[in-house]
């Protein structure tokens, strides 16, 4: 009655069964990757022009000259704004970055006057849009470098300070990567119901019951196998996002891994719940499809929930995928919050607890 006895061989056996099942491989690994590639390509129509809001706190001719200098960079489109307005515009996604010229720049740039410290231009960019951020940093640095050089003979008068600002409008690819990872984790869990029901139907579970292998060991081996696949899914999806669309992960890796594990286990519990309910393999397949498609479209995977018709929004508020996708977008790419992260975690935990409790009560082994 040792829980560990047989656990590792059973986990390996599960992994082998999974790997040799082409259908499972396609739906859990290839399908989400295709999704990321396809949607990323369709929606990130690579514009190389950046709209930048220009905030001038200095107001001296030198600052105006600086603006003219930036205006010559063809990649940038400047737009004057007050600082509050500029930041609001960026949050809404109307501009890609904000440059703030602090008071005192004119004085610092005056020839012959040695500044005590370089006057700092402030550049706001969105780090989840790594390519845009990099390009803007470079452009600004180049312009500033050129100005500094023209003022040669004096110590550097200008430097650039970059600041992060999370925006509503992370790039399309940055939106899709965590969303589709969440969708893939859902599929991984829900589709677990089908082999489980098949194993019951074909009396594999009964045959195992005639050995000393405990049910806890069997369930644990299934969870371990699915977590392993979840890790592979994550690497694939994030990898495709990074290589094809330059999506970088900005959050705390441990938090992200924890959320992925929580999501995988929650949907696995829901998969087991389906298996408790389904009488045979066909029913399990039917229920799984019937559940996954609406959930996929109603959980803000493809577009933010705010874009959904109002009468549908309460449905989204009920679905676990909404919260997993939201949590992953917040932590992985700094996406805008649907609800605060602790609420995402709490909702998923409740789903996990309820699904586990119902399954424990109603699951039939034979």
């Amino acid at each position, binding site marked *: 009655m040792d829980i560990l006895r047989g656990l590792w061989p059973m986990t390996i056996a599960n992994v082998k*069964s999974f790997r040799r*099942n082409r259908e499972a491989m396609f739906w859990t690994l290839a399908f989400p990757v295709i999704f990321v590639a396809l949607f990323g390509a369709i929606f990130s129509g690579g514009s190389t022009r950046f709209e930048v809001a220009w905030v001038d706190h200095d107001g001296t001719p030198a600052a105006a000259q600086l603006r003219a200098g930036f205006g010559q960079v063809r990649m940038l489109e400047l737009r004057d704004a007050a600082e509050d307005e500029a930041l609001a515009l960026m949050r809404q996604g109307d501009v890609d970055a904000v440059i703030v010229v602090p008071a005192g720049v004119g004085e610092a740039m005056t020839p012959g006057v040695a500044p005590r410290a370089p006057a700092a231009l402030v550049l706001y960019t969105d780090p989840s849009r790594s390519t845009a951020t990099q390009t803007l940093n470079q452009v600004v640095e180049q312009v500033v470098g050129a100005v500094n050089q023209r003022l040669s003979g004096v110590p550097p008068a200008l430097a650039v300070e970059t600041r992060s600002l999370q925006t509503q409008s992370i790039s399309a690819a940055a939106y899709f990567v965590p969303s589709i990872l969440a969708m893939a984790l859902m599929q991984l869990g829900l589709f677990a119901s089908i082999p489980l029901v098949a194993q019951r139907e074909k009396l594999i579970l009964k045959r*195992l019951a*005639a050995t*000393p292998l405990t049910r806890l060991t069997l369930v644990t081996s299934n969870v371990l196998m699915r977590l392993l696949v979840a890790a592979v899914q994550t690497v694939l999806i994030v990898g495709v996002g990074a290589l094809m669309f330059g999506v970088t992960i900005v959050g705390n890796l441990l938090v992200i891994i924890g959320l992925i594990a929580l999501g995988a286990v929650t949907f696995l519990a829901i998969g087991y719940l389906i298996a408790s309910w389904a009488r045979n393999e066909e029913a399990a397949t039917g229920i799984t499809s019937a559940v996954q498609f609406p959930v996929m479209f109603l959980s803000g995977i493809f577009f933010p929930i705010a874009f959904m018709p109002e009468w549908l929004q309460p449905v989204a508020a009920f679905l676990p995928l909404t919260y997993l996708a939201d949590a992953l977008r917040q932590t992985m790419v700094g996406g805008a919050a649907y609800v605060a992260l602790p609420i995402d975690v709490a909702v998923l935990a409740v789903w996990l607890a309820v699904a586990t409790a119902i399954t424990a009560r109603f699951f039939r082994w034979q």
Partner: protein
Amino acid sequence: MPSPSSGAVIAVRELRKSYGALRAVDDVSFTVERGEIFGLLGPNGAGKTTTIEILEGLRKPDGGQAEVLGIDVVRNPAALKERIGVQLQSAALYPELTVRELISLFGSFYARSLPAERLIGELGLGERAGAASKQLSGGQRQRLSIALALVNDPELIFLDEPTTGLDPQGRRSLWEHIDRLRGEGRTVLLTTHYMEEAEQLCDRVAIMDHGRILELGTVTELVGRHFRDRTVRFESRAELSDTALATLRGVSRVAHEDTETVILTRDVPRTIGGLLELADGLGLEGLDVAVRRPSLEDVFLELTGRALRD
């Protein structure tokens, strides 16, 4: 419960199990001795599988007692499972895993296990060791499931309908493997609805129907208990009327099975002598006469009024 005789590996007393109104197992008692092949015989739905699954620790009885290898099957199923080998009726295996992988996997569930290669060799699965279980033929699959039943080197093996679904050749081949288990000193409890299988393999059989054991003993005992008669059979001829046949010496009954006439007799030589004389007198030629001892099949028919296979 009475202490079973020293050789008993299974002792069952007054076992009962109902599903709703259906009494699947109804007051069943028997013992199985060490080293014998014991057959539970009966048609589908007789209660054989329910009985065997209670003894395997897979089902809880409603009443009665069952001790297997000295272990109470209700109180300590975990200890029991460590020591028995089990083949379930029509249970499949992980379809994607190979023969070798499955044997190693099942071996890992037990405190001690036999090497996979040895079992593969013993059950003649060498050529298919790398094949996925879904690619095996029916006979190979049954041999694999016996290999899995042997993986913990058990003293006692349960085989539930081991040859169902096999062709006659596959059945005979499997019989040899089962027979060898007895040679290795193991005890086997098997269920079957093939009379021939029980006659070939079993030291003792219990005939079950409607959840009850109707008869128990060696095949010879059972047949002797019910029939002193032998049967004489031949292709029916219109010229040989039942009334004429009934007057032959020793004949107790005349019956028909398909195209054959069956004569039950206590005195085979006299009956045959009379039959041949009768045929000669009528000018019949090429009468193909066979004499047969009644079989378990006949015993079952006698006991239940139905044939076994359906």
